[in-house]
């Protein structure tokens, strides 16, 4: 089977069986309004090109995100869920977790303190 995998500017992808692990490229990532749109485009391409059941998005190097990022994550969660798949977010830094909790999205999204 030919892989559809393309080179990504914003994503680093590791695939292992039923789980696709993704992290953001770079050291300290600031997901502002405009970077979020770029990342979302690449991740949509990745999701469409893989069949793994779980998408594990490592937020370990994300130091800032906005309501646009959260809206995108909610949309991705909903889209994957409707396809019988699952989005998990791992290793959010304290200030990122705080933003997620301030919007009560920790009730909706699967946020994990560690990878896996």
């Amino acid at each position: 089977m030919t892989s559809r995998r393309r080179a990504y500017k914003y994503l680093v992808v590791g695939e292992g069986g039923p789980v696709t692990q993704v992290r953001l490229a770079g050291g300290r990532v600031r997901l502002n309004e405009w970077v979020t749109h770029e990342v979302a485009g690449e991740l949509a391409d990745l999701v469409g090109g893989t069949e793994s059941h779980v998408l594990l998005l490592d937020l370990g190097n994300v130091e800032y995100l906005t309501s646009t990022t959260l809206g995108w994550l909610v949309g991705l969660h909903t889209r994957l869920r409707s396809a019988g798949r699952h989005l998990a977010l791992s290793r959010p830094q304290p200030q990122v977790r705080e933003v997620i909790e301030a919007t009560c999205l920790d009730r909706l999204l699967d946020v994990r303190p560690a990878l896996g």
Partner: protein
Amino acid sequence: VVNTLTAWGWSEVVCRRPGACWGEPVPDGGGVAPWHQEVVRSPADVGRALDAITAAVAGAGHTRKDAFAVRLALEEAIVNAHKHGHREDWGVPIAVRYWVGAGVVAQVEDQGPGFDPGQVPDPTAPENLERSTGRGLLLMRAYMTLVCHSRRGNCVCLCRDRPLAAPGAPVPPGGRP
């Protein structure tokens, strides 16, 4: 601050620490720190404005947490102005004014028709969690001490003093000590 803004005709005053702000946010002279102004006409301008206010907040001795909070709230306000106030038209400038001293006050003004913040649905309600509206305003309110809008609804004023408890923390009756 609340009384001053109310007297100016501002509405929807949401203060997490009623009566506990640092003082009047109108330092026009008398040796107090001046207001700065940025005009935003592009995404690059947004970054420049946010970098400038973040540097000013850090330079005034506020914490990294304060800088994070102010940057986030201000970006939410500018993005709202661009998306909703100007229908994503960068040809219409957004005015950003800020003052950094013992606290931080920032205003974001667009040239749109304005909106009624009271009509924005609560994004934390279970039935709204998967909707995309209202989270920006929610974050502004969570991270700033006070958020209020001009009567027309096209200008938002964001204030933060210190210290401030974690966003989302319940406010005791009468405000925090």
